[in-house]
């Protein structure tokens, strides 16, 4: 393929632009809960996000990337015209990137995941025909958009109920917080690392057996817990605090917990959302390198994953911090005892989705978790209008992504084809 290098360069550029957009905008939703509850300073949130977004993208981002790359449309359908698929993937990237830009400028809440999926379906239907779309897989993805907020909401509901029972509604909340919070830390470390180890690592060439994954995850959980206990030991109940002020001391224990769940959130977001940017890039690279012979189920090149993660971190440090600051200021009502339940539920749900290769919206999942805690009467006031925004983003973003991708597709074909 003579224009191969050009295609790869274009794909890398568009993918980087998209990753930058995700870092600049989307990461804020994942990190702002920690900043809003005053657990992390802005500077630390950026650091945590950069580190764990990167780790998540690199270690657990493979499955979703594969889905975006070859799960929605099967490359085999493009066997004779690999360039159509290349134009399509470039168009989908451009569509999602520019839609994200427009939406951010206009203040619309949109989901990158929905845009890129819409874009890929859009060009495929127009360029070749509805039969190339793997509708079964698309239906699974669409179902996961409804199910992921529900699962996270249920988890958060149950988690916060357990916090009520074990800690908040007891005679000595502070002592019980010190006793039980390490347990939640173990769960966090274990669950996130276990899903990653058993589902994600095969993409970086580290397949583990079931027992190995269990043992290593258990060790990671214990390590995280030991670290957490070290920090919690240092927290003294506030001097002169009577029963009424005990909750302030309790929240300080949960603040330690929330540092951990903030890391998990960044990891989860990286593992799922980086694929929106690099899935199409991986597809283009694979097609070009196999010189059009579409057998290409080769591994995702390391530099592509790396580039996507780097793009997210760049967007985060160049622009995303402003968004985190703004959002963080708006959600001061979320105290660490709830924030951790929301973040842990969201992170576990999203990392699981990443493991099985389903592109979901981290933001929508987090909204589900927060509403779950709201149902336990744990949050002072929530605006249910947000649910309408989510439905709207399902209804509007998909067609918008599709339409833009079709436009870009024709444009690219006219220019390059």
């Amino acid at each position, binding site marked *: 393929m003579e224009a191969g290098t050009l295609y790869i360069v274009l794909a890398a550029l568009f993918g980087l632009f998209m990753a930058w957009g995700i870092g600049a905008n989307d990461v*804020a*939703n994942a990190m*702002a*809960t920690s900043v*809003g509850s005053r657990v992390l300073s802005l500077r630390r949130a950026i650091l945590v996000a950069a580190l764990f977004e990167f780790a998540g993208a690199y270690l657990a981002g493979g499955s979703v990337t594969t889905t975006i790359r070859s799960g929605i449309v099967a490359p085999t359908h493009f066997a004779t015209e690999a360039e159509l698929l290349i134009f399509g993937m470039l168009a989908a990237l451009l569509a999602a990137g520019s839609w994200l830009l427009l939406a951010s400028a206009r*203040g*619309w*809440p949109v989901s990158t995941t929905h845009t890129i999926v819409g874009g890929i379906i859009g060009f495929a239907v127009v360029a070749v025909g509805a039969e190339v779309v793997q509708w079964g897989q698309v239906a699974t993805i669409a179902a996961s958009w409804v199910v992921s907020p529900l699962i996270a909401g249920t988890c958060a509901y149950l988690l*916060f109920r357990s916090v*009520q029972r074990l800690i*908040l*509604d*007891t*005679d000595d909340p502070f002592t019980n917080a010190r006793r039980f919070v390490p347990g939640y830390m173990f769960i966090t470390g274990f669950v996130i690392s276990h899903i990653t180890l058993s589902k994600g690592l095969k993409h970086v060439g580290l397949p583990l057996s079931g027992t190995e994954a269990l043992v290593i995850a258990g060790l990671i959980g214990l390590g995280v817990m030991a670290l957490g206990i070290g920090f919690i030991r240092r927290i003294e109940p506030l001097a002169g605090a009577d029963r*009424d002020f005990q*909750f302030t001391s309790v929240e300080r224990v949960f603040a330690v917990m929330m540092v951990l769940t903030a890391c998990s959130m960044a990891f989860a977001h990286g593992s799922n959302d980086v694929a929106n940017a690099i899935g199409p890039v991986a597809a283009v690279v694979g097609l070009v390198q196999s010189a059009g012979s579409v057998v290409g189920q080769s591994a995702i090149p390391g530099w592509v994953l790396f580039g996507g993660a780097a793009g997210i971190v760049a967007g985060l440090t160049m622009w995303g911090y402003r*968004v985190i600051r*703004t*959002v963080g200021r*708006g*959600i001061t*009502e*979320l*105290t660490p*005892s709830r924030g951790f339940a929301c973040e842990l539920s969201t992170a576990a749900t999203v990392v699981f989705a990443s493991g099985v290769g389903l592109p979901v919206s981290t*933001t*929508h999942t*987090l*909204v589900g978790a*927060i*509403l779950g805690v*709201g149902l*336990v*009467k*744990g*949050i*002072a*006031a*929530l*605006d*249910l*209008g*947000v649910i309408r*925004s*989510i439905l709207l983003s399902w209804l509007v973003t998909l067609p918008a992504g599709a339409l833009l991708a079709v436009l870009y597709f024709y444009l690219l074909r006219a220019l390059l084809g």
Partner: protein
Amino acid sequence: MSLIFALFRASPFAPLQAHFATAHAAAQALEGLMQAAWVGDWSRAQGQVQLIVALEEQADTQKRTLRAQLPKGVFLPVSRSDLLQTLQEQDAIANLARDIARLVYGRRLQLPESLQAPTLDLLRRSIATVNEARTAVNELDELVEVGFRGRRVARMQGLIERIEALESESDWLELELRDMLFAKEGMLNPVDVIFIYRLFDWLGDLADHAEAISHRLQLMVAR
């Protein structure tokens, strides 16, 4: 706009408590007004009236701000209408304090000496009821923190019972005062008598509104 940002609204509980603090202060200022009135110090009484009127206006502003903060789509751990009713009752206490102040000062209302101390008792008992209701409303913070469950709910139940007991005490005091006034009616200016009855009525109403708040709180914590 970020969805997460749009999801959170400001807590209505702190503004509700702030509004009650204002209404409570207005009611408390009545004691100074009556003491001034009964020694005939009308310039000090006027100062108290002005204070009460200012507090009532402040309460009105706080009420409007809080209401604007609670449109229909907002999801609260308690029923929105219970919350708005609580606000209404709190505001009624401020309004009543203003009406009582204007009644006493406007008519330069004088009480027979034997009735002055018991009237002050009634006022203090009603304000004690209001005070207890305020303690209960201040508990809402802790209830949100634990998620309206368990021990804190039991504690709220205890406060509600205290409020009801105090209200019925103020009821009895009002009844006794009416009997005392009835026995003296013949010796007093009839127009004054009408307004003294009204004064007793309104002083009792202060406790009634406090009790109404406790009933709303009861509904909030009921499962």
